[in-house]
């Protein structure tokens, strides 16, 4: 396996064998370890000393199901701390097939406003070539992505950044192609797009033709694990064909969270939105059925995914408005802004994809602006206009593009739902206190994907603590965060966790798959330990960047403002929050 280092100072590159100390790292484990080891914690995120690292998971590029995840890591311009964001795309599988364990983008060109793209092909080893890309800037992504396919053929995978990244926004993602060659699959959070753009890099085009494919040390063990994983995913109620995710997508959670009083509404002022049923997964499925004349089940975001949870929103003529509208995007651009017009929510989502914006940060930022009176809550056309302002880079667009925290500061808003500068996703911590602990303490800033669990044995970490006590919840959050760090390294989508927590053979399947690829004999305990080591590396970086335990806190208003309908505050003691990393 190779490390490919691209130097944007002089547009040169180096290909080296993977250093031994990184041999058994992949995905988030590799991006975070490299960033922690090589990026000066106090550097400017958009300056020449930051590095942008791409790493596919252990299993990416193999036939393991639902395993084409790519991790993108750097110091974040949104949080000022370490960041890993990931996406499902053929790009991940192609990078792995070319045996590139890490692609590291370094330096910064002296020419301001100039952009390049790179192609990576296989000529006995990875070969990098540069091409001019300034002509593709200042345009929405759907208008420029096809040019890459016209230029380099159909067999490529494409990574890029949009206008939000070119403006240097803390709210800007790195985009990858979906199964239809479109720019829709985002490593969205934390401003990774702006880091890539700051290096004068617009596109990374992969052509795997002739590449050897991902090596597998113990094919029999890998196959055994793969079969167990497939069985688990195909039988579990959430992940099976025509199950919850394949039928309704993640937006099925809208009505659930609303009934629980945990759907943040109108900038986190209530936990219940009267318009929720009109934008929920059930409404999406039935609206599509009416408009298309048949039941439309969801599709895969990347090759080899058998969960297939990505939905499509069709307009009244049966034409696509956007794909995919996830629960968190549906919520942030809908309920959090008081918007219940599904077509307008879909349009907002499509615009985020076109400009290269993170949907969660965009919706929460607009909601903060609504609270400030910039436009009223519920004004969907006004919200669409604000996203255009962000795309165009007008003065107000640039304020909003800096994210919810900055927008709150500019407009003097006190109810700003962020942790470490990153906007909170769609689960109200005053109603779901367990996830609140993870929001507060994760190294990533408020992040709903930081605390998944994959095995009930995790209960063992709690000793005699009550899982519902603050201390018990903190212990579980610590274990959840460690197991998630490992899944984020495996190449599997986090949603495999739904099946393998409940089906023990599926969990063993994941361990067998990874051991088969690497030739290791890791156990369940080893996985937890590896996850913990990743978290420790991330934590060390953040502390050196000035983000210590004092930043592991919820915004003040959540501790003082009761949230209707339950009228609870976030009352987890600071000591319990501190225990998450103190006892890691």
């Amino acid at each position, binding site marked *: 396996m190779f490390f490919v280092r691209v130097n944007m100072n002089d547009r040169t590159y180096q290909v080296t064998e993977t250093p031994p100390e990184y041999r058994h790292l992949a995905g988030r484990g590799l991006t975070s370890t490299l960033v922690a080891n090589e990026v000066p914690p106090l550097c400017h995120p958009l300056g020449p000393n930051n590095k942008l690292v791409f790493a596919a998971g252990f299993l990416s590029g193999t036939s393991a199901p639902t395993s084409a995840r790519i991790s993108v890591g750097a110091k974040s311009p949104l949080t000022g701390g370490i960041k890993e964001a990931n996406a499902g795309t053929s790009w991940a599988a192609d990078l792995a097939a070319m045996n590139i364990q890490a692609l590291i983008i370094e330096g910064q060109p002296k020419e301001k406003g100039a952009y390049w793209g790179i192609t990576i092909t296989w000529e006995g080893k990875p070969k990098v070539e540069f091409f001019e890309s300034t002509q593709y800037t200042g345009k929405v992504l759907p208008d420029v992505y096809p040019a890459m396919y016209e230029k380099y053929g159909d067999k490529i995978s494409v990574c890029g950044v949009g206008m939000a990244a070119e403006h240097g926004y803390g709210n800007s993602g790195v985009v990858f192609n979906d199964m239809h060659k479109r720019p829709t699959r985002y490593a969205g959070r934390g401003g990774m797009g702006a880091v890539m753009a700051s290096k004068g890099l617009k596109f990374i085009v992969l052509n795997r033709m002739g590449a050897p494919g991902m090596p597998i040390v113990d094919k029999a063990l890998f196959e055994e694990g793969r079969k167990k994983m497939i069985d688990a995913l195909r*039988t*579990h*109620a*959430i992940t*099976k064909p025509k*199950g*919850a*995710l394949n*039928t*309704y997508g993640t937006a*099925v*959670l809208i*009505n*659930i*969270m609303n*009934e*629980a*009083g*945990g759907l943040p509404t109108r900038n986190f002022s209530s*936990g*219940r939105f009267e318009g929720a*049923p009109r934008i*929920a997964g*059930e*409404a999406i499925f*039935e609206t599509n059925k009416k408009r298309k004349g048949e039941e439309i089940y969801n599709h895969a975001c990347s090759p080899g995914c058998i969960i297939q949870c990505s939905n499509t929103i069709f307009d009244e003529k049966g034409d696509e408005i956007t794909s995919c509208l996830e629960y968190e995007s549906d919520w942030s651009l809908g309920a959090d802004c008081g918007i219940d017009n599904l077509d307008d929510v879909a349009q907002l989502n499509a615009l985020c994809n076109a400009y290269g914006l993170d949907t969660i940060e965009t919706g929460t930022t607009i909601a903060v602006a609504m609270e400030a009176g910039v436009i009223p809550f519920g004004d969907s056309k006004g919200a669409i206009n604000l996203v255009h302002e962000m795309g165009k880079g007008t003065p107000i667009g640039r304020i909003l593009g800096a994210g919810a925290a900055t927008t709150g500061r500019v407009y003097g808003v006190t109810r700003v739902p962020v942790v470490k500068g990153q906007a909170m996703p769609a*689960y109200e911590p005053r*109603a*779901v*206190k*367990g*996830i*609140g602990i*993870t929001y507060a303490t994760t190294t990533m800033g408020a992040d*709903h994907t930081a*605390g*998944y*669990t994959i095995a*009930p044995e*995790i*209960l063992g970490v709690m000793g005699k603590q009550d*899982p*519902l006590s603050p201390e018990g*919840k903190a212990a*579980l959050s610590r274990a*959840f965060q460690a197991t998630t760090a490992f899944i984020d390294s495996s190449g599997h989508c986090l949603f495999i*966790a*739904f099946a393998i*927590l*409940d*089906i023990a053979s599926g969990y063993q399947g994941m361990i067998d798959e990874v051991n088969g690829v690497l030739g290791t004999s890791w156990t369940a305990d080893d996985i937890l330990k590896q996850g913990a080591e990743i978290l420790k590396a991330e934590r060390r970086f953040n502390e050196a960047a000035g983000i210590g335990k004092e930043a592991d806190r919820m915004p003040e208003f959540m501790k003082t403002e009761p949230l209707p*309908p*339950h009228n*609870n505050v976030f009352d987890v003691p600071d000591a319990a929050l501190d225990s998450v990393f103190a006892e890691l």
Partner: protein
Amino acid sequence: MATIRIDVWLYGALAHYGGNPDERVFANPQVSIPEGSALRDLLKALKMDTQERGITFINGDLSAMPGIQPDLDHPLKDGDRVAFFHLQSMWPFQYRHGVGMIAELQQAMLESEDSGLHHTYQSGKES
């Protein structure tokens, strides 16, 4: 006999129990049942088998999941909001850890396999 009125929310495939046989998105009927009724009496009034429902809420507190239904004898009072979800819905553990639950479900979770640290509770973990 005195009656109480229940604010019922029916989602997805259960929406047709609200009166419109073609409705599949949601329904919000107001159902009158005798004072002193429990959740099972509400189900009877709706003509809905308890096995057809999955995730259930009483006044925003989780009261049942597919495979765990300790709420059948939970008493209802006038003005209660009760929400029933279809069996293709989901609520993964980490997104409900620490939410409000009725006491009967909290007890049932603690007594269930692995203290309830699962995403689903159906037999064989399958539907």
